């Protein structure tokens, strides 16, 4: 994979993620909005070579983790990034079942892989409140409410993945997913 193109695209998608919430939120800026970084992550997961997928999705997960989360006192690095890493594992299992160069496949995978990502993320945030471990629950945290809100965001993301997928698929050659990397043989 061409990491320079990946970095530029990630930067642009992070901008979209942080800047377009007031415009795209349903019913208002406080409501559900599409997760652009997840769409890019699933696109990378569907298209990149196996050994690159985890690194790419982990990078995007860390970027997504930099956006302020539910903890009011600051950003907790880890839950979202690990959610994306779990998503990478899931996508590697599932991508053999779909036609990778289809935006419909991308949209469906955004939804299903997103479920894994959000489940792991919510689980890790919830884990902070368990008396067995840290017993430092996030204020006003409700796993059910979070899953409910994130479900709508996933649906919205899946819809948004169709037009974005058309653009990303045109950029496939730029990403050089099939490029030969050092130590790899071509037949």
């Amino acid at each position, binding site marked *: 994979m061409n990491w320079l193109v990946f970095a530029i695209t990630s930067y642009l998608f992070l901008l979209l993620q942080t*800047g377009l*919430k007031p415009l795209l939120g349903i019913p208002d800026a406080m409501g559900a909005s599409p997760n652009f970084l997840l769409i890019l992550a699933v696109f990378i997961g569907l298209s990149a070579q196996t050994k690159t997928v985890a690194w790419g999705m982990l990078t995007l997960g860390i970027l997504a983790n930099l956006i302020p989360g539910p903890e009011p006192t600051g950003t907790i690095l880890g839950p979202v990034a690990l959610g994306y*890493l779990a998503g990478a594992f899931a996508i590697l299992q599932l991508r053999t079942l779909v036609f990778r160069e289809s935006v419909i496949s991308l949209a469906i995978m955004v939804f299903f892989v997103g479920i894994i990502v959000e489940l792991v993320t919510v689980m890790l945030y919830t884990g902070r409140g368990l008396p067995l471990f840290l017993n430092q629950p996030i204020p006003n945290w409700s796993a059910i409410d979070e899953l409910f809100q994130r479900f709508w965001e996933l649906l919205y993301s899946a819809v948004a993945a169709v037009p974005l997928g058309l653009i990303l698929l045109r950029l496939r050659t730029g990403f050089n997913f099939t490029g030969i990397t050092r130590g790899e043989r071509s037949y």
Partner: protein
Amino acid sequence: MNRPPITPKRVLIAIAVLLLLSSQLPTGAATAIGSIPRSFVGFISKPASILHRMSATLRPGRTNAPDFTPGGELADQLAQANVYIDTLEQEILELRDVSQSLAQIDALLDLGGIRLIGANVLGFNGDLENPIITIGVGESSGLREGLAVVWGAGLVGRVISTSAQTADVQLVTAADTKLQVRIAQPVRDGVTEPLPAFIQVADDGRSFITEDFAVDAPVEVGDLVHLADDSWQFRARGFIVGVVTEAIDHPDRPYLNKYVVIRPTLPLPSLTRVAVLVPVD
């Protein structure tokens, strides 16, 4: 002694373990670690600010402009009489709102011991329970946790974390927010005193409610709600938390209490600029 080779797979596993530990650290330590990569968000500050402003321009949030007309009867008559005149009146009301905000800013600027640091809004986290906007000034401009953030005469929120070039501001509509306020008429008549009250964020996360007033308390739609909370920065007191949009008999105690709904005067998640009240030490 042979060391096991460092492979990408092992590095990935090590990072995953570190992230897992980070995610389960005590809050103070976890946020301290998280603030290091958060500093890199400064790289996107300028384009993100432009994009956010464009979004807010294309789809501005709802502004609950207070009705400054005493009684509001004239406005009602005009609305019934002529739609065109009603539109013009609305524009005049909004301009009066801006004018009063500017006058209050002038008054604040005259106060010693405080600096207003302007900042672009870089983004909004979209969380209804814990709404946070990120702004493009940080510790290098003197920001620190707990400082109040305002825009015009309206209260926006409070700084909850900072990095060198950015800061996170929790909006005043965060869940479980309880504020001590004073409710006053928009145009003082010199007789009615502002009423002290406690307000709390409603379940919808977009407004405040208070159920403490007696049924005959002189609270009217259009009254302004000013911050008077001891737990906030002293200079933030007096800023407008919202405007009364509903003052009805309490559904459960109709002969005893009023049910008052207050909405923020500013479209908080869609703001593109804010100002931080930084004390001059």
